[in-house]
C-alpha cells in the first residue's frame, strides 16, 4: 500500500472532523447559542441604553466569544480520546503537530467561523454601527483563531481529567488576555469611527505566533495525556 503523504494525512484529519461535526449539529450549535446568551447577559445586567452598550460592545463581544470558544475547544480531542482514535493518530507515523493543526483548523471552521458570521447580528444588538461590521468580523476571525490555538494546548493538557472543563478555563483564559485587549480595542475604535489597523495588525501577529507555536506544544501535551 502507498504510504500516506503528510498533507494528505492532514487533509483527511480535517475532513474527518468536519464530517463528524456536521453529523452532530447539536454540538456545533451549542457554543453559538452560548455566545448569544452571554452577549444578552450584558444588556440585562447593565441596562438597555444603546448609547451605553455601544461603549462596551467590543468588550462584550470578545468576552462572549472567549467563553464560547472555551466551551467548544473542550470537545476538540475528547471524542477521539474516548474512542481510541487519538492513539491511532499517535502511532500513525504522521507528524502529530500537523494533525493537531488540521484538527484545530476543522474546529475553527465549525466553531469559530459561525461565531464570526453571527457577530454582526450581536454587534447590532449592542448598538454598533453597521460601518463597524467589517472590523467586528475581522477582529473576531483573528481572535477565534488565536483562541482555537491556545485552547488546543489547554484541551490537550486537561484531556481525560475530572473537572477538566473548569481547569481548562483556568489555564487558557490568562493566556488569551493579550488577544482580548487588542481585539476589543479594535472593535472599540471601529465603533467610534476610527481606524483599527494597529490593533488588528497586532492581533494578526499574535495569530501567526500562536498558530506556529501552539501545534507542537499541543502535540507534546497530547503525547503526555495519552500515555
Amino acid at each position, binding site marked *: 500500500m502507498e504510504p500516506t503523504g503528510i498533507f494528505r494525512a492532514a487533509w483527511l484529519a480535517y475532513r474527518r472532523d468536519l464530517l463528524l461535526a456536521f453529523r452532530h449539529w447539536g454540538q456545533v450549535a451549542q457554543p453559538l447559542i452560548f455566545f448569544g446568551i452571554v452577549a444578552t447577559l450584558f444588556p440585562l445586567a447593565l441596562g438597555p441604553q444603546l448609547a451605553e452598550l455601544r461603549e462596551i460592545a467590543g468588550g462584550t463581544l470578545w468576552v462572549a466569544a472567549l467563553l464560547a470558544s472555551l466551551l467548544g475547544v473542550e470537545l476538540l480531542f475528547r471524542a477521539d480520546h474516548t474512542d481510541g482514535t487519538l492513539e491511532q493518530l499517535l502511532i500513525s507515523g504522521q507528524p502529530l503537530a500537523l494533525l493537531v493543526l488540521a484538527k484545530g483548523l476543522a474546529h475553527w471552521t465549525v466553531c469559530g467561523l459561525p461565531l464570526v458570521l453571527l457577530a454582526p447580528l450581536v454587534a447590532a444588538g449592542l448598538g454598533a454601527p453597521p460601518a463597524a461590521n467589517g472590523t467586528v468580523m475581522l477582529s473576531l476571525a483573528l481572535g477565534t483563531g488565536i483562541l482555537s490555538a491556545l485552547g488546543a*494546548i489547554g484541551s490537550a*493538557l486537561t484531556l481525560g481529567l*475530572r473537572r477538566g472543563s473548569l*481547569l481548562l478555563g*483556568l489555564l487558557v483564559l490568562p493566556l488569551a*488576555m*493579550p488577544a482580548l*485587549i487588542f481585539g476589543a480595542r479594535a472593535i472599540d475604535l471601529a465603533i467610534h469611527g476610527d481606524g483599527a489597523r494597529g490593533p488588528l495588525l*497586532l492581533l494578526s501577529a499574535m495569530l501567526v505566533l500562536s498558530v506556529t507555536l501552539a501545534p507542537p*506544544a499541543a502535540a507534546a501535551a497530547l503525547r503526555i495525556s495519552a500515555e
Partner: protein
Amino acid sequence: MNWTWFHKLASPPHAYRIAARLVPWFAWPAGALIVAGLYGGLVLAPADYQQGDAFRIVYVHAPSAWLSMFVYATMAVAAAIGLVWRIKLAHAVAAASAPVGASFTFLALATGAIWGKPMWGTWWVWDARLTSELILLFLYAGVMALRASIDDRDRADRAAAVLAVVGVVNLPIIHYSVYWWNTLHQPATLTKFGKPSMSGDMLWPLLLMLLGFTLYYGAVLLIRLRAEILKRERDAAWLTTELAR
C-alpha cells in the same frame, strides 16, 4: 568533559544530601542580609520628600516583585530541562518552586495595594504593572491546579512543565500588551510612581533586600526540594537506609 557529577547531582539520593548541606549556606546569609536591609531601610534611610515614611514598603514590595518573576523563570527553565532530558529532579524543582513563586506574587500584590492606598488613595488601580502581576498570579495558579488535578505523578510533572513553558513564552506578550492597553485607555497619571533615581542611602538597603530575598528563595527551594524528594521516593530503598542513619 566529564559529566558524572551532573548525573550524580540529578539523582535523588545525592540531591537530597547535597540540598541538606547547602541549606545553611543560603539561609544564614539570607537572614543576615534581610536583617541588615530592614535596618537600613526602616531606620537608617531618610524619609522620602514626597511619600514620607510610606515609601519604606518598597523594601518588601520590590524584592517580592523581582522574585515573582525570577521564580517563574526558574520554574520554566527547570520544567524545560525536565521535559527535554527527562530529569525527574528538574520536575521536582519546578514543583517545589511554584507555590513559593505564587506566594511572592501575592506578597507583591498585597504590599502594592497597601502602598497604593496612601499614595494613590485607592487599593487598586488597573495599572499595567499591577495587572500583569495579577495575570502572573493566575499563571501560577494554572500550573499548580494542573499539577494537582493529575494523579499520575509523571504525567502531572510533564503536563505542568508544558504549561510552564507555554506561559513563559506568553509572559512578554502579556506584559507588553497590558502595558499598551493601559497607555491606550488612560494617560499615565498615577502609573509613574516614585522611582526617581534613588539616592544612595535609600538604595543600598534595597539591594541588600533583593539579594537577601533571592537567597531566601534558594534556602526555601532546597528545603522544599528535600520534602518533594521524600514524597516522591517514599518507597525507595535508599531512603529507608538514609533515614535510618
